[in-house]
């Protein structure tokens, strides 16, 4: 059969006739038959190639195309040839746009990436008269590998197209280009921005919506690319431009506009306040921004933007407005106050999702320390504590935990509110108790005061019976016992008997406070307090989970930090593959793997954009606007935290970026001191030392916990180290001169080593080297010249960090299986105890020396060395992740019934060879820890059974 068909085909081809439809049909039967041999199929391919050269009949071409598609799909190893044929002139130069479109889509469906279609063909196809083909090309432009410059021209050109869908696609294309590309040409950026702004007035909704997106993205680029000091004005202008769109009649456009408003970043306070007021504020009257010549826009255009958004007809828009407000709050305290009033009003909204989002925003304010509640708002706010929905109640309590109340009146209102909550919804007990405890800790003095007022309620009634059956009393007791642990100083005393009352409630209280301390600890604490009110809190290791801002993840109402509204909206009908990708990433679906490669490089671009921003922020620091810069860095940190860490290579890059941001943040904080303290203040010294310590820690981490950095990257980090040392040297009040000089010279030496044969050292590095030489040559180290170092700092300017490698983050996970306060490990006092540990190491090489640190207190600390053989032996021993179990001995068991100790894992680094660690038998060098401390509970073995 095969032979027969092939022969007839050959025959007709030899006669210079193209294949007939019939012949093609018989070829098709060969193609779909799975038993057909490969050699036959190759000859089919040849036949088709020849036939294509002979015929220009569109029907034949169409069938041939189908055949080729089938062939490529069924026989993967033949698909390259089939694809070559597809790409050949014969199909693409066809006069029928439909055929061209078909072949294009066939090409796209068969290959996922890297479709080489040369630019000239791409452009000529685009410029053809067929609109549908044009649309298809624009839509898939990024899958076809076409030069950016060509794409830019094509996209920009087609924003002029009379067909609205083409305009939309062109705008979308411009947005993608802007996100991926690296544009320095100011003319291009301005041109694209202006074109997008023009299209904000388009007649079609979807074009306007796309234009809003484009204005946002190109606007950001415009701000970044501007050289002179009018960045603030520019970003304000872009913001106002977008703010003018929130009154559009189409919900799609409004959604997009609010989404965009949240993305612009640094906005001046005047403008922000204007968005919350429909009337034009005095400062903004007649203020006209001219971001680019011809695009004048008055500040009044943005008037009341958020007011409109928050009372929009559609809950999606209201949510989106809430969300954007949230991102802008960090920039101005006054704005936050005004926004808070609105948020309080939003608690009356008829849609629950919107109410939640509003609360979320308030929570965000609380975490960023921008929450200032007034009495009027408090009433409104506390009414959510009796809301029907448990989610709303719990979020409200979450906010209350973080709140700082300036007046006793407010505090009392707040406590009353929580008590009311407890009364109406007894099921909330656990959470209410925990909230009360936190509030109590935050407001020690008020707590003492309120307990004094309520003490008659707490005392036993005349019959000698305790009125402890009421939950209300229990709530007061929880509040009372929080006072000694307060963050404030000198809070006053709680009568010791209160603590003994609390003991009767120990079960319920400890259940509620399980996130802070376990039952035993609570009991110990209570009994200690009931004996004397003066206690030292050193013994009680309270987990400060909630009070550190970083540790507190934002309430997980929405899975991504990108506006939740946009996602839902877009998935329901809109088009945005970007959002789609993120969603797929979360689901870890198969499709995800395909995107991984592309996404990784995309991530790198995003990260590098962040670095670019950081560089800009640094210039702010040097100008003295440290607060603004810190704000900006914080926003960046948030942004980075939202990056997708799911795929393999990304986690390291994201962690590295975060760490870098932290370093810069701390550096900025120290740098500020350089400007401020010209005079000597002892208390400032203390503060400064603290800041230096933080900086040092961050620097150590960034140096030691990442591998896979390129030389250039490492050099930049070294330079940061140098700056830190020099900064230290310039402050004579805190520096230990000799050590620091030693460190400095060693770092310089290391840098020199890295420089060998590669790039030129930076100006600062050269200067440092020079002055180091000067210092060394001038007799002994006695001549200490802080001014010299002070001067050195002037030559420092932050270079833009460019991430090109894939840094990997060294970290570890430590688990003690089956151990908690209820199930302690057994031990016999005086004899070594064994602690089984499940250890997972990430990116730790076999050469590195790992140590376990087990400590009960500062005095009894013990180090255990982890053998490298052991590390290698782990199952799942890929180079990246090593997983194994290890039984660690603990020698210093005390003579006690039970005790807790903490374990952590560190890696010894040799680079820092200044001896600071002085524990015998332990590591010789600095030991950065790879994981947070893990609590281990141990109990005397005979005691253990009693416990259970």
């Amino acid at each position, binding site marked *: 059969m095969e032979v027969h068909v092939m022969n007839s085909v050959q025959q007709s081809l030899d006669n210079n006739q193209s294949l007939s439809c019939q012949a093609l049909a018989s070829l098709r039967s060969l193609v779909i038959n799975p038993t057909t041999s490969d050699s036959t199929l190759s000859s089919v391919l040849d036949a088709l190639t020849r036939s294509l050269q002979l015929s220009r009949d569109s029907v034949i071409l169409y069938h041939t195309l189908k055949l080729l598609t089938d062939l490529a799909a069924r026989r993967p190893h033949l698909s390259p040839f089939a694809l070559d044929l597809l790409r050949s002139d014969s199909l693409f130069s066809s006069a029928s746009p439909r055929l061209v479109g078909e072949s294009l889509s066939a090409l796209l469906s068969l290959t996922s990436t890297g479709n080489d279609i040369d630019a000239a063909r791409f452009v000529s196809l*685009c*410029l*053809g*008269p067929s609109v549908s083909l*044009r649309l298809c090309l624009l839509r898939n432009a990024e899958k076809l590998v076409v030069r950016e410059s060509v794409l830019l*021209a094509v996209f*920009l*050109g*087609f*924003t*002029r*197209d*009379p067909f609205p869908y083409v305009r939309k696609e062109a705008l979308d294309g411009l947005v993608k280009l802007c996100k991926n590309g690296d544009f320095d040409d100011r*003319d*291009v950026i*301005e*041109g*694209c921005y*202006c*074109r997008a702004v023009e299209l904000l007035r388009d*007649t079609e909704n979807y074009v306007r919506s796309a234009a809003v997106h484009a204005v946002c993205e190109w606007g950001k680029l415009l701000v970044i690319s501007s050289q002179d000091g009018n960045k603030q004005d520019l970003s304000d202008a872009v913001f106002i431009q977008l703010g003018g769109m929130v*009154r*559009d*009649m189409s919900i799609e456009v409004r959604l997009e506009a609010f989404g965009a408003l949240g993305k612009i970043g640094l906005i001046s306070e005047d403008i922000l306040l204007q968005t919350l007021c*429909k*009337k034009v504020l005095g400062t903004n009257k007649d203020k006209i921004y*001219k971001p*680019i*010549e011809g695009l004048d826009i008055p500040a009044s255009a943005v*008037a*009341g933007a958020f*007011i*409109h958004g*928050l*009372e*929009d*007809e559609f809950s999606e828009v209201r949510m989106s407005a809430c969300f954007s407000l949230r991102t802008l709050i960090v920039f101005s305290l006054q704005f936050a106050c005004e926004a808070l009033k*609105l948020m309080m*009003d*939003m608690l*009356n*909204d*008829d849609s629950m999702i919107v109410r939640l989002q509003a609360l979320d925003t308030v929570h965000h304010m609380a975490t960023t320390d921008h929450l200032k509640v007034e009495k009027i708002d408090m*009433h*409104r706010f506390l*009414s959510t504590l*009796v*809301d*029907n*929905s448990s989610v709303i109640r719990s979020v409200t309590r979450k906010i209350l935990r973080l709140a700082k109340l300036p007046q006793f009146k407010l505090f009392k209102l707040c406590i009353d509110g929580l008590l009311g909550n407890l009364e*109406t919804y007894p099921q909330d007990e656990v959470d209410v108790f925990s909230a009360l405890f936190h509030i109590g800790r935050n407001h020690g003095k008020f707590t003492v005061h309120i307990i004094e007022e309520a003490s008659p309620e707490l005392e036993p009634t005349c019959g000698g019976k305790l009125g402890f059956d009421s939950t209300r009393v229990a709530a007061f007791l929880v509040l009372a016992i929080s006072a000694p642990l307060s963050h404030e100083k000198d809070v006053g005393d709680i009568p010791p008997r209160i603590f003994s009352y609390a003991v009767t409630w120990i079960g319920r209280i400890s259940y509620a406070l399980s996130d802070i301390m376990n039952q035993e600890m609570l009991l110990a604490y209570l009994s200690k307090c009931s004996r004397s009110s003066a206690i030292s809190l050193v013994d009680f290791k309270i987990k400060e989970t909630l009070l550190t801002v970083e540790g507190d993840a934002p309430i997980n109402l929405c899975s991504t930090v990108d506006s939740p509204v946009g996602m839902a909206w877009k998935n329901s009908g809109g088009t945005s593959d970007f959002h789609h990708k993120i969603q797929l990433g979360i689901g870890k679906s198969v499709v995800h793997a395909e995107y991984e490669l592309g996404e990784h490089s995309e991530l790198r671009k995003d990260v590098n954009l962040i670095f670019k921003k950081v560089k800009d922020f640094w210039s702010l620091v040097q100008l003295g606007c440290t607060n603004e810069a810190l704000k900006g860095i914080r926003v960046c940190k948030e942004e980075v935290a939202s990056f997708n860490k799911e795929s393999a290579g990304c986690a390291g890059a994201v962690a590295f970026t975060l760490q870098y941001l932290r370093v810069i943040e701390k550096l900025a904080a120290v740098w500020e001191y350089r400007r401020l303290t010209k005079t000597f203040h002892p208390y400032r010294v203390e503060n400064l030392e603290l800041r230096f310590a933080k900086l040092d820690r961050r620097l150590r981490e960034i140096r030691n916990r990442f591998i896979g950095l390129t030389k250039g990257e490492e050099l930049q980090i070294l330079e940061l180290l140098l700056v830190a040392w020099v900064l230290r040297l310039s402050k004579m009040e805190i520096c230990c001169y000799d050590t620091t000089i030693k460190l400095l010279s060693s770092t310089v030496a290391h840098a020199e080593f890295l420089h060998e044969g590669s790039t030129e050292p930076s100006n600062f590095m050269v200067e440092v080297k020079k002055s180091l030489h000067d210092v060394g040559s001038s007799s002994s180290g006695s001549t200490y010249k802080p001014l010299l170092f002070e001067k050195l700092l002037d030559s420092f300017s932050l270079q833009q960090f460019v991430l090109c490698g894939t840094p990997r983050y060294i970290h570890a996970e430590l688990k003690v299986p089956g151990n908690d306060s209820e199930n302690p490990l057994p031990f016999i006092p005086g004899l070594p105890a064994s602690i089984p540990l499940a250890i997972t190491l990430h990116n730790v090489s076999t050469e590195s020396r790992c140590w376990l640190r087990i400590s009960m207190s500062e005095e009894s600390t013990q180090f255990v060395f982890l053998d490298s053989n052991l590390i290698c032996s782990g199952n799942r021993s890929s180079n990246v992740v090593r997983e194994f179990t290890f039984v660690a001995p603990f020698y210093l068991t005390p003579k006690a019934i039970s005790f807790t100790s903490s374990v952590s894992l560190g890696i010894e680094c040799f680079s820092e060879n200044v001896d600071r660690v002085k524990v015998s038998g332990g590591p010789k060098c600095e030991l950065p820890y790879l994981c947070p401390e893990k609590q281990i509970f141990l109990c005397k073995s005979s005691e253990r059974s009693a416990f259970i």
Partner: protein
Amino acid sequence: MAIDCLVLGAGQEVGKSCVVVSINGKRIMFDCGMHMGYTDSRRYPDFSLISKTGDFDNALTCVIVTHFHLDHIGALPYFTEVCGYKGPIYMTYPTKALAPLMLEDYRKNMDRRGEGEQFTAEHIAECMKKGTWVSFSFAHFIQMLQCLEKDGLGVSLSFRYVFKIVISYERNHLHNPSIFGVWTGERYIIMKDQLPGFNYFLEVYCLKLSFYSDLTPSVIPVDLKQTVQVDKDLQIRAYYAGHVIGAAMFYAKVGDAAMVYTGDYNMTPDRHLGAAQIDRLQLDLLITESTYATTIRDSRYGREREFLKAVHNCVAAGGKVLIPTFALGRAQELCILLEDYWERMNLKVPIYFSAVRNFDRSLINAPGPCVLFATPGMIVGGFSLEVFMQWAPSENNLVTLPGYCVAGTIGHKLMSGKPTKIDLDKDTQIDVRCQIHQLSFSPHTDAKGIMDLVKFLSPKHAILVHGEKPKMATLKERIQSELGIQCYCPANNETVTIPSTHYVKADASDTFIRSCLNPNFKFSTCSSVDKSYLDSNGSKAVSRLSVSDDRVSEGILVVGKGKKAKVIHQDELLNTFGEKRHEIQFAYCFPMHMTRTENIPSASDLLCGLDKCTLISRLSTILSNELSEGNILDLGEQLQVESFRVSVCLSDNCPHRLSGSFQSNLESVFFCCCWAVADEKLAWKIISIMKGSTLQTT
């Protein structure tokens, strides 16, 4: 072509909205309202201005009513029944359903106040329900029935009109029709079974069949965004306006002229109504209300918060809350608001709505807190007054009042200062100790909303109605200065005439169409001088990339005498007229000074051909130093700047040389230049530079 806009009511005032617009030969009356403040003839618009003879049917194409408020519909019964207008009236479904109730309510009230009756209950019923007989052929009728039968009972029809099919027996005469079916637009409700002896009388009596329809003239309900073809030329379309249920903005288009009349609208949504919604249209004229021409209102959340707080505090303290409202509009809003709040806060206090007819009066004095909605608003009498008399003496109780109360009502008395006693009549006096809360909900858009709408629609002209004169003047100024839109606010009985758009249809040549299909964009860098920099750095040229697509603007419109206009491609132009291309060029030949450093015999020796290029390149350096614009090209023996060319002239009698004016001397050399008209300025500039400078030669 022009649009004439005759304002019969609501010009520089609030009340009796009525605007008659003549647009391309069609005449539309928007709204037909009455003024509530007057009882004399000023109450109604002066309809005589429309037609002196009173033949309104021919004078007007149609009447459009935006919503059921009396200042927009109050004069309609008068206009149709007394003045005798019989033409079509358009309004939305809800307006049509609710308007009779409002009108009837008003008529009764007027009765009570002893004012002269302008129209009767029958008038209202006639005005709203009136239809005419439309006869169908028998065959057509059968066809329709068959169609119905085929689809069964739940037949869905593509059009949505409520109309009754009435069959009239020849025997019984026209006056006693029997109804046998109703189409509600979605289904055919009454079955054919109800038609006794269907087949029987069809055969025996051979009926004259008629449809009694609401559809044909008189009141025609329209859907939102439904385009209604009023007649061959006039299209109207309703858009959602917020304000009250059924309120609409109307778009009207005749030929190429288009306009929008907004009626009352609200740009911010509340709990039961959305915000006004309209497409981006190409408009010649926008007539908009301007009730709050200068006010900018706060967020509605603040108002809601105050209201809820007052009510909650009252019921929490065990008090009773009386909310006097009219049955439509605000009552629904407050009801939704309270209901929602109750649910969220888990409140169990009962809420009563007395509009339900049989309200148990014993509940009024039942112990415990409650909330009661009672009609009418403003406490003018009826149930709300009854309850008020009982509840007012307790200071625990609360009365919420609407934002606006007519003078003379109890509501008004309560609002103007807090009285302790109110005299109802000679014998009855009410002790007022209860709390009073004033609501400030308003369904009108504020100044910002008006500006936003005008900005969004960007019409060529705008007319403001339904507002107070001084405030309108302020808004008018703002619209003109900020948006650059011509704006008017005419007084009553004034006519505003504005030009309207008129499109000319033109053929297009094939070349032109082909050129339109293919994109043809060009990039350019437009440069201009940014004046803002002038003070700091002197002038600085700003350049920016911009793109243009010439495919559409490339056409040339050709209108021949007595022929239809035609658009052609510019390349075809010369062909079409059989003309040749002409170009005008200027030429000028003049001497230029030269100094010599070496001793060279004479100019002619110098110009023996060898040094031409040297001279030109010298000249080029001079020009590039002096000339700021243009691109100087050195072409060897020639120099070119744009279209300006210059070369060394050797002939003694060059035709371009002005004879006698220059003396040929050894110190100078002649240059001959030529240029096109477009670059004339540039050319003279270059020439003056050349004349002013001296060539150095070696």
